[in-house]
């Protein structure tokens, strides 16, 4: 390899797909990359090209000849696509066609880190030094512990993989129990396995694992240190019930006067201020929700009924939050998602009509261990004597719907809301249709979709099966839920049937999309990792490194990186565990491609270039 410093190099910045050449300034970061490239002594020309249409080799050749370029660097998200044109152009221009080099990077939101990384990639390509060679850091000893943030199925899986390999894990979960969203589900698509049967044993295994320290009601509030050696500050909110002493006898719950909607039941049932999220919760003990507890809210002036009832003296209402420190080598982020707030799409009538339910509400309604024992019922009006108001409740004895409509893509693939596809809604909607047909064989079930995204293993077959089960699958996202003559009516265009439908229904299920967990922005800032344009944590390399982040020793798994189903989540979680174990087992942290400044990378690349030239 000859890397003469006198080489005349042309840098071609290739815009992302669909980006137009900027008149001036341009998208975030681009200008910085351009000015950095042009000040490199080897570079004689920097120009910007759109990704499409592909440039004409003849025109390129004349440009190459004009500037007597000896090498060209194609820089952008997918520079390889233009390589053939440039190779041909170099040939036509009489230059060495082998000297077309690629600098791959993603500008993303134009954060400093992304820009630095892009500049570093350009520098390496200009100097003809492999990026990976120039960005290897001095190896350093790694702390063996791993922090997992988020106790959903992703966090659970990653923690178990690492702990089963004999390494220490600290698992930090925001709520009072492990499990995340999967714990709320009845069945999983497409196999219709019982969700709890898969998840509960894993949750228990985590809870009992000698290598895992579980912290519920906890959040990471500070991160210090470098890849391989992080010191993490964690705030543990007071549980106020000692999990070791609590035997879950429910005595406290019976006397507690406060009734609030249950988060775990997605609001279709209630809980007390002292409660257990669900019977299989891990840790399997009661906890107190400080925000609704009378004692805590009145600063000890009133109530305290539960303390007197507890035979085990497990309750300490005056317990305080505490902050603990943990040293770890790697951090796995698995904070999952929150469902799209359905009330934002007013025309679907969520909260206006009682029997318009969100997907999570329906998961709880149809769940055998849910408030109705899995009986699908319509909400009925009941007078709340204590609060003296009428309210709509899911009475286990209530009437069952004779017709159900399921509306896809609520908040997804919609430029007014989230433009991306949430990936799981089509499939869970089909799952819902199946559950409705199975439990209410006489009920009509309509499914309104835009495109059926049955992309996974066994999914297309599942779709076919649901159609055979007698579900009316309508192509066309229904647009409105209205009331006509006292009945709910779903109005939508049947595109394949070329007609306008107005179906009177008893129940509407809104298939809401997924969006990043609240607090993701703060967590990203805390950890020093990036987020994509929709707020999901950004992976280092979409294809090559979908679990790494810009910061060495910090990884992402599950929906927090982007919408995905359970199998993909579990697979990614296991992959992430392997990444953490790699550095723990080898004892050295070396995959920190981020972190170095462009200037550092450039000077190391120069050193390497002279060494390589001397070979």
């Amino acid at each position, binding site marked *: 390899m000859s890397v003469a410093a006198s080489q005349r190099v042309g840098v071609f910045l290739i815009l992302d797909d669909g980006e137009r050449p900027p008149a001036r300034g341009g998208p975030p970061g681009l200008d910085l990359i351009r000015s950095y490239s042009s000040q490199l002594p080897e570079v004689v020309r920097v120009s910007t090209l759109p990704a499409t249409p592909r440039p004409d080799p003849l025109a390129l050749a004349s440009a190459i000849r004009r500037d007597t370029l000896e090498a060209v660097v194609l820089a952008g998200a997918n520079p390889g696509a233009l390589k053939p044109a440039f190779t041909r152009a170099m040939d036509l221009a009489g230059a060495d066609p082998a000297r077309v080099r690629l600098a791959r990077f993603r500008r993303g939101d134009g954060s400093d880190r992304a820009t630095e990384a892009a500049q570093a990639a350009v520098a390496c390509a200009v100097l003809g030094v492999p990026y990976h060679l120039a960005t290897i850091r001095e190896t350093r000893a790694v702390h063996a512990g791993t922090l997992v943030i988020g106790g959903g199925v992703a966090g659970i899986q990653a923690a178990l993989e690492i702990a089963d390999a004999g390494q220490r894990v600290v698992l930090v979960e925001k709520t009072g129990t492990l499990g995340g969203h999967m714990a709320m589900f009845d069945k999983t698509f497409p196999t219709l396995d019982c969700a709890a049967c898969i998840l509960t044993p894993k949750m228990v295994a985590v809870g009992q694992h000698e290598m895992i320290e579980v912290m519920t009601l906890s959040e990471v509030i500070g991160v210090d240190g470098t890849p391989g050696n992080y010191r993490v500050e964690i705030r543990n909110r007071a549980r106020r019930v000692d999990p070791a002493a609590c035997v879950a006898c429910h005595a406290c719950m019976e006397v507690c006067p406060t009734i609030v909607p249950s988060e775990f039941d997605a609001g279709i049932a209630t809980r007390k201020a002292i409660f257990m999220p669900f019977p299989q919760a891990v840790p399997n003990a009661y906890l107190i929700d400080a925000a609704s507890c009378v004692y805590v809210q009145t600063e000890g002036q009133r109530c305290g009924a539960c303390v007197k009832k507890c035979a085990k003296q497990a309750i300490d209402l005056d317990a305080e939050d505490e902050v603990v420190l943990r040293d770890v080598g790697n951090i796995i982020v698995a904070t999952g998602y929150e469902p799209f707030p359905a009330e934002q799409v007013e*025309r679907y009538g969520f909260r206006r009509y009682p029997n318009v339910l969100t997907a999570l509400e329906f998961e709880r309604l149809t769940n055998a261990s849910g408030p109705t024992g899995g009986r699908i019922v319509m909400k009925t009006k009941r007078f709340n004597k204590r609060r003296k108001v009428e309210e709509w409740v899911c009475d286990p004895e209530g009437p069952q719907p004779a*017709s159900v409509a399921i509306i896809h*893509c609520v908040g997804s*693939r*919609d*430029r*007014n*809301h989230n433009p991306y596809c949430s990936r799981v809604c089509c499939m869970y909607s089909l799952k819902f249709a199946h559950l409705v047909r199975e439990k209410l064989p006489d009920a*009509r079930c309509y499914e309104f979709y*835009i*495109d059926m995204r049955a992309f996974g293993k066994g999914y297309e077959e599942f779709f076919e099966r649901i159609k055979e089960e007698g579900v009316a699958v309508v*192509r*066309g*996202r*229904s*647009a*409105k839920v209205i009331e006509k003559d006292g009945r709910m009516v779903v*109005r*939508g*265009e*049947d*595109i394949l049937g*070329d*007609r*306008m*439908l*107005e*179906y*009177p229904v008893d129940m509407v299920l809104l298939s809401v999309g997924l969006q990043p967990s609240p607090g993701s922005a703060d967590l990203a800032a805390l950890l020093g990792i990036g987020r994509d344009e929709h707020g999901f944590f950004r992976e280092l390399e979409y294809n090559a490194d979908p679990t790494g982040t810009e910061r060495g020793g910090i990884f992402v798994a599950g929906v927090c990186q982007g919408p995905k189903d359970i199998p993909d989540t579990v697979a990614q979680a296991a992959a992430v565990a392997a990444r953490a174990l790699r550095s723990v087992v080898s004892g050295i942290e070396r995959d920190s491609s981020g972190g170095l400044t462009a200037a550092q990378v450039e000077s190391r690349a120069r050193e390497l270039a002279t060494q390589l030239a001397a070979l």
Partner: protein
Amino acid sequence: MAVRANPRLIDELELYGAEDVQKCYHCGNCSAVCPFSREPFLFPRKSMRYLQMGLEERLAGTLEPWLCYYCGECSEQCPREAEPGETMMSIRRWLTAQYDVTGLSKLFYRSWRAELAAVLLVALLTGAGFLLFGLKYGGGSLGVYAGPGAFLPASSVHVFDWILGGTLAALLAANCARMWWLTTGRDRRVRVPLLDYVTRAFLVPLHFVTQKRYRECESKRPWAVHFALVASYLTMLVLIMLFLESLHAAPANRLAHAFGYLATAGLLGTTLYALRGRWRRATPLHRHSHETDWVFLVLLVYVAATGILQHALYRWFGLDTAANVVYIAHLMGAVPMLAVEVPFSKWSHLAYRPLAMYFADLHERALARAASPAGAQSVPAAA
């Protein structure tokens, strides 16, 4: 029947204002939120489809765009920002060009320069013509506005009005006939019995005068403004076509004048309202403006303003010469406005919309009749 696709159709429509059609992914949201969309006329999604697929013939035969009043609900709710409402508006422009037998409409819509040039040309011809006429056959002196020896005697102008009116009506009628052929006549799926044509004909004047379908929009205001505009224009038309002489008569005909004042106020008020709306892009209807929309509105305001001025100069200030000059200036706006806009541009919808309601009714009857003996359901299968 073979269906021919024109892959350039979508580019062509871009010249008429539809820029975002390709973004549509056919969720059907727009058709379902549209207060006017019902079988057998489902829109706007289907029109988006015709465009994407280049089904030129189908598109030329649709009545749907005339059933849309651009309340903008669909554009507001479209998840892809494909602007279905604006697309319907653009198709209306395109259809106007298709119906036009002379081909001038196509020219005007695609190039506002051409439209402007035509307006200016007709204006100059009008000005020159009236000047020459006044000098040669009229009173000969600009100093006399009305009465005997008037520069432009009302009776001559009146004759001219009738000639102009007749010509424009004939042109428009030819376009309407073509519209009938494209949408109804050639369509083999709809067989309309002659009797229906006769018994349902009342729909045309009904919709022409009341524009009652417009009232089905959620907001009643656009209809009210439009109704005021049309009522004012009709009043003006009647006054000019039938009572021009008495308007000009020296002792003012109070009744005719009262109507004239009212109509003028209505005209100015509504056009200024529309201009302001377009300028501020306040409603979806006004968010996108084609160049021809501006030409039309500016002409309207100009004609109304010069009309008032000419009237004021003569009646209130007794300035005959100035009144005559402004009168010619007024005609230089009014004539091209009518000559260009009525048969070839935006104003032609005064005929197409009521006709479309009429044809739509005929289609519906024909389709229902075709469906009923076969026993098929003509109403959507509601569960």
